[in-house]
């Protein structure tokens, strides 16, 4: 029973709680058996439930399998490359593994009465849609001292599916030049380091350090994470590192499709969390994207990787019940990692609580985000998260934030900040930093916020003896950083003035025309 909150009514006059399902407890699909599960006010029996979940999975995935849509309503499925699955050990990715195997890689197709494969030749189980499948897992224990390495437990799970090849990665590979050489073919990528201010903060100017200190990949990632200003930033950084590691691994391995096991609940959480952290511009990429690394100038464009979340219409409750009724073993994520606080954890608590009483609102979040579209075309690909980058971010930030101080006392307080980092704060002082050292223009708004956000709980102090620089992932330095804005691959180019004039020449009004 729930109270309506009106103090004028009797305390015992409670409003009856709304039923969580329709009038009947029988299955709405077969209408023969009593229901076993309630999914968003609809009741299903155990036998009808599994096919419904599998149908949602296929409807979310199969329209994106073929490289071209074609004209047939039910085309024969044939992908242009192999398949890559991102596996975390969690509920959604465990079910993804099971469904993909049963639907597309099972070797024993069921036969009908005449001995032919059931479902016809176009049924997914009877045709090889993808020639092979790799399962990528990113172990994060290197980032957290004392965390247990679960790679072998994950390997045991993946080995239950003999058609799949297991590709274990480690989170510190993001700072490992040898891994980058393997996936990109580039063996001369410089490690980019950020200069820290006196207080150990990554400054708003995001200036590149001039010196390089040799660190192991594990030391580098721990230093990187410890330099981030907030728990939210750490959580976001780990997600980005994991995603980019898997993207590059899948792409370099010849995959045409990369699947993640995000359920509808997880997806809604990540959408809200991303928007809260300034990632609204790339919200469509959070749902589904076609990704390719930015090619260096002169090289041919690389194949596109389709990143899909085929469980995006399946709630966490459906995933849990599917796993239980189909004996899908779920390892789960490490408790220490799940305990990371921040916006992501707060959003998760909110959405999970919302789903309990108002299950349809979780779907509403995802459906609404699907309709969002950025106003303008991206100006390139963010160097850190590899997602589309909005143009004119710094100009916009300049309009909404304080960039200069007229008060003499405040200006004097800037003296403790190193000169290269002071330029963005004090416009009265001419910048003495060459453009070569500025990283700001190569990052999207979300990544910029991740690196420079301030915690209300105060700033972290740099311990004595700790380096005043922090490393960035190895792919940030790919293709170099040039002061004239020429990044290669057409991502961003400074247009000469004459070229700009030629472009708009037809739209200019001559003075002679005005006088007439």
């Amino acid at each position, binding site marked *: 029973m729930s109270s309506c909150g009106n103090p004028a009514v009797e305390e015992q006059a409670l409003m009856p709680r709304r039923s969580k399902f329709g009038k009947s407890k029988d299955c709405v699909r077969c209408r023969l058996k009593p229901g*076993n599960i309630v999914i968003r006010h609809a009741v299903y029996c155990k036998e009808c439930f599994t096919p419904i979940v599998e149908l949602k999975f296929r409807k979310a995935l199969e329209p994106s399998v073929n490289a071209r849509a074609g004209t047939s309503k039910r085309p024969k499925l044939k992908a242009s490359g192999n398949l890559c699955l991102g596996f*975390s050990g969690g*509920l959604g990715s465990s079910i993804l593994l099971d469904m993909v195997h049963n639907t597309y890689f099972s070797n024993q197709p069921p036969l009908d009465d005449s001995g032919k494969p059931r479902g016809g030749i176009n049924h997914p189980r009877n045709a090889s849609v993808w020639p092979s499948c790799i399962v990528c897992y990113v172990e994060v224990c290197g980032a957290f001292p004392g965390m247990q390495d679960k790679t072998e437990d994950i390997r045991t799970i993946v080995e239950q599916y003999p058609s799949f090849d297991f590709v274990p990665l480690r989170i510190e590979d993001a700072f490992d030049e040898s891994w980058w050489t393997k996936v990109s073919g580039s063996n001369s990528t410089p490690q980019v380091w950020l200069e820290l201010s006196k207080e150990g903060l990554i400054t708003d100017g995001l200036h590149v350090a001039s010196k390089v200190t040799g660190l192991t990949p594990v030391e580098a990632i721990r230093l990187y994470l410890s330099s981030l200003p907030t728990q939210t930033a750490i959580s976001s950084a780990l997600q980005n590192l994991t995603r980019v590691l898997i993207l590059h691994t899948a792409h370099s391995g010849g995959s045409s499709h990369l699947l*993640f*096991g995000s359920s509808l609940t997880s997806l809604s959480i990540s959408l809200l969390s991303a928007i809260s952290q300034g990632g609204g511009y790339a919200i469509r990429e959070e749902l589904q994207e076609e990704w390719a690394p930015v090619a260096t100038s002169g090289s041919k464009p690389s194949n596109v990787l389709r990143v899909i979340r085929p469980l995006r219409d399946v709630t*966490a409750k459906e995933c849990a*019940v599917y796993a239980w009724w189909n004996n899908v073993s779920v390892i789960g994520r490490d408790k220490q990692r799940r305990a990371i606080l921040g916006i992501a954890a707060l959003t998760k608590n909110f959405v999970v609580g919302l789903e*309990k009483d108002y299950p349809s609102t979780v779907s509403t979040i995802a459906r609404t985000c699907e309709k969002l579209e950025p106003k303008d075309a991206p100006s390139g690909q963010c160097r850190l998260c590899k997602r589309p980058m909005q143009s004119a971010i710094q100009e916009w930030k300049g309009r909404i934030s304080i960039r200069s101080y007229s008060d003499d006392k405040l200006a004097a307080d800037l003296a403790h900040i190193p000169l290269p980092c002071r330029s963005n704060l004090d416009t009265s002082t001419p910048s003495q930093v060459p453009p070569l050292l500025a990283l700001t223009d190569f990052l999207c708004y979300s990544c910029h916020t991740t690196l420079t956000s301030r915690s209300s709980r105060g700033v972290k102090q740099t311990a004595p003896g700790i380096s005043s620089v922090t490393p960035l992932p190895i792919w940030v330095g790919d293709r170099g950083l040039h002061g004239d804005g020429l990044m290669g691959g057409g991502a961003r180019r400074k247009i000469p003035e004459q070229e700009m004039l030629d472009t708009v020449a037809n739209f200019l009004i001559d003075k002679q025309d005005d006088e007439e």
Partner: protein
Amino acid sequence: MAGTMMIKLVFSGGLELLFSNERNQSVLIPSFVPSDNSTHSSPSSSSSTPSSYNDTPSTGETKAADLEYLIYHLRDHLLKERPELFMENGTIRPGILVLINNTDWELEGEGSYQLRNNDEIVFISTLHGG
């Protein structure tokens, strides 16, 4: 034992970590329990279990043992750590799915479902994400 019921429990989805890492357990529940869900004098309680969080003496009124009482009982006598991850605002925490004999507890009246001997109650955490 007269006036008691054997309830089979299964913990899944990581929830077993809160219950001594034992997936399958069973408990003895009295057929009639205090209406205020006090678990002070439950047949499963012993000196080795953590001290009860609900030590107030029962008011004397009783009810047929239901799922709401079972949840309090599990929190007070079987849970080893982090009670806030299992129970919230007097009921099961959001994100934990409950199946009663393979049926969603929402179809059986949730906490007001009256327990029967040899019922199987499954608690599955859905909070491990994708």
